[in-house]
């Protein structure tokens, strides 16, 4: 299986996703060694371009790249030419002219990685675009679930929070459905677009939503949303949707509690739940490095595809698989 870019999980087959997870699983032990390095990407340069503030994702990618012996360079919007008015395209072209072996992009506009992938020659890894997708986050979430549960087939997974604005929710939704899991989406109606009903069960009742589930993923509530009238106050939001012990008790006895981070303690998740015995939040972080190492291995280590071979895109090139 070959992959050129990692733009999103929509449309990825069960087979492709499992291949990524299998590969990631085999990278885990590298972070357990004393010398946490393999020479695989020696001599390769990976550039992280972060138009949105992001410490944890950026650091995770950086560690992953360095453990693969790649050189990692990072660019953040506030310090770069972006503030001088340079367009995304020009920034990318300038970078591409320096021949990096991969570009990791986080951008507030949905579709930005697709935009680049159509115009720039090196592999693009989407580290989060607008409200669209955050594929490495969802993959590490799945890796964490699989580590504990084996298969995702028929697993019941509840996702709680601001689904409307969440790229993590969208990526997870695509992947979980591809792997045969049953998804429930929980949140206030203002944050649950109507079209979601085609994809998953939707409810605004937290207790009903988490009853009997195997996994609960809580999403971060951004404080800025409060002013925009999606809910009257964080207090009221947490009264109805904060994942507390009472809610956790309604799920299966060995339920997994997950969160992409950073956590707003007491708002979307109670402290004792975040730190409790069912929480695998820290495992997610560990798995994140292994997952990103695997992604870098698959996209960056190989021969670059000739530009002329790149197929014209009618649809967004999510992850294109070459035959074989």
């Amino acid at each position, binding site marked *: 299986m070959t992959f050129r870019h990692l733009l999103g999980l929509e449309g990825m087959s069960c087979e492709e996703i499992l291949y990524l997870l299998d590969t990631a699983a085999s990278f885990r032990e590298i972070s357990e060694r004393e010398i946490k390095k393999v020479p695989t990407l020696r001599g390769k340069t990976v550039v992280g371009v972060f138009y949105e503030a992001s410490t944890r994702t950026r650091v995770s990618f950086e560690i992953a790249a360095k453990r693969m012996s790649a050189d990692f360079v990072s660019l953040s919007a506030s310090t770069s030419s972006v503030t001088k008015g340079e367009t*995304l*395209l020009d920034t990318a072209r300038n970078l591409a002219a320096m021949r990096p072996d991969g570009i990791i992009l986080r951008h507030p506009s*949905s579709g930005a990685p697709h*935009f680049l992938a159509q115009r720039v020659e090196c592999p693009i890894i989407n580290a989060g675009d607008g*409200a669209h*997708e955050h594929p490495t986050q969802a993959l590490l979430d799945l890796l964490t679930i699989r580590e504990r549960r084996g298969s995702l087939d028929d697993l019941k997974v509840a996702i709680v929070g601001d689904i409307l604005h969440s790229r993590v929710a*969208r990526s997870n939704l695509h992947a979980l459905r591809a792997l045969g899991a049953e998804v429930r989406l929980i949140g206030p109606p203002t944050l649950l677009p109507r079209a*979601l009903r*085609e994809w998953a069960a939707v409810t605004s009742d937290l207790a009903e939503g988490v009853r009997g589930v195997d996994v609960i993923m809580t999403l971060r509530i951004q404080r800025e949303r409060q002013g925009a009238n999606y809910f009257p106050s964080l207090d009221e939001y947490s009264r109805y949707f904060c994942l507390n012990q009472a809610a956790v008790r309604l799920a299966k006895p060995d339920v997994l509690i997950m969160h992409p981070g950073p956590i707003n303690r007491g708002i979307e998740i109670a402290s004792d739940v975040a730190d409790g015995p069912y929480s695998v939040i820290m495992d997610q972080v560990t798995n994140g490095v292994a997952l990103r190492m695997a992604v870098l291995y698959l996209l960056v280590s190989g021969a670059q595809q000739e530009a002329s071979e790149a197929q014209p*895109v009618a649809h967004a090139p999510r992850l294109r698989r070459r035959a074989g």
Partner: protein
Amino acid sequence: MSSRLLIAGGTVVDPANGVHASCDVLVLDGEIVEVAAPGHGAGSGVDLLDATGCLVVPGLIDMHVHLREPGYEYKETIETGSRAAAVGGFTAVACMANTNPVNDSAAVTETIIEKARAANLVRVYPIGAVTMGLQGEQLAEIGEMRRAGIVAVSDDGQPIMSGELMRRALEYAGMFGIPVIAHEEDRGIACGGVMHEGAVSLRLGLKGVPSAAETVMVARDIALAEQTGGRVHIAHVSAAGSVELIRSAKARGIAVTGEASPHHFTLTDAAVDGYNTNAKMNPPLRCESDVAAVRAGIRDGTLDVIASDHAPHHRDEKDVEFDAALNGIVGLETALPLALRLIAEADIPIDTLIRAMSTNPARILGVPGGSLSVGAPADIAIIDPKRRWRVDPAVFASKSRNTPFGGWEMEGQAVATIVGGRVVHRATISGRRRKSA
């Protein structure tokens, strides 16, 4: 070229006069002097224009275009826009006021008219702003602009959010007998959305504009038109709910007219897939049922006008990430073939289409043209309905190339455009003709 022109061998479609028959049209000194049964042949000193196999219609009038001059000449000028219009079969266009400076004064109106006269191609009727600077706060000097030559007022590009201001505009414009053309968008509901709110926007992670953002304002302005007795023309209708509201308002006798752009009866929000910025416009492309409702509205006359909303943008403004791209597409050179598709696809007769693209715009704006009556100015379009061609933005007469229809195979094109008896556009022979069945 003499001042006598005979257009012979074509089929005249002139809904204003109820004509749809094989007729020859004789033009003298810029006026139509005769529309008669064929076969008389041109006498000496008369130029002959062979319209065999073609439709001969009153010159098309596009009452919603953005010519971008003054101020945005890098996107389009009055001259290049006029050329694009002529290529599209239009003998007249009405241009919107969102230029720079905004056309909210007699001075800018006069500049536009002067530039159009210099281009000497098609008739250009300026539309004046409703409010100063399109800010939506203070009425512009509508009377002065009327004297300078505007044919309507509109803040198009922006909605008039203040109900009170819209009411006053309807009342005041009524004094000069001109309509208010309304861009219907509730900013609060639209809330910065960049495409139609639906399954596609959910998938793409783009902020959506629900149909309610449009219908809410259509309802408001219909009520205000009823209240004031003023004339309101609803621009670029995109939602089924809006069509329904206009239909019932007309049934109640309210002076409202409606307009649709070709992209709103051809494409759905699926066209955005892949983050295609040439499918980004305001109002956005909506879903199948909305497209069907717009077509039905054209069929039964609820939507009186088909207008292109020609909105040229430079490549640097469209070749960016979706959120950052400007709204709008060019349309003068593709409006006619897209409309002609409705004949087969939506069972809409050619007479209805010509009514929507010539007769009604002339009537609503109160300008000459829109018919082939004897004594009318010789503004005529000759359309070959079987001419096959491929949309190639690289050869557009317009300065800009922002269209989602690039590469589309079209059937039907204007082969000659005549303004005041003068041929301002003649198509080359390069079009392929389908062999007659």
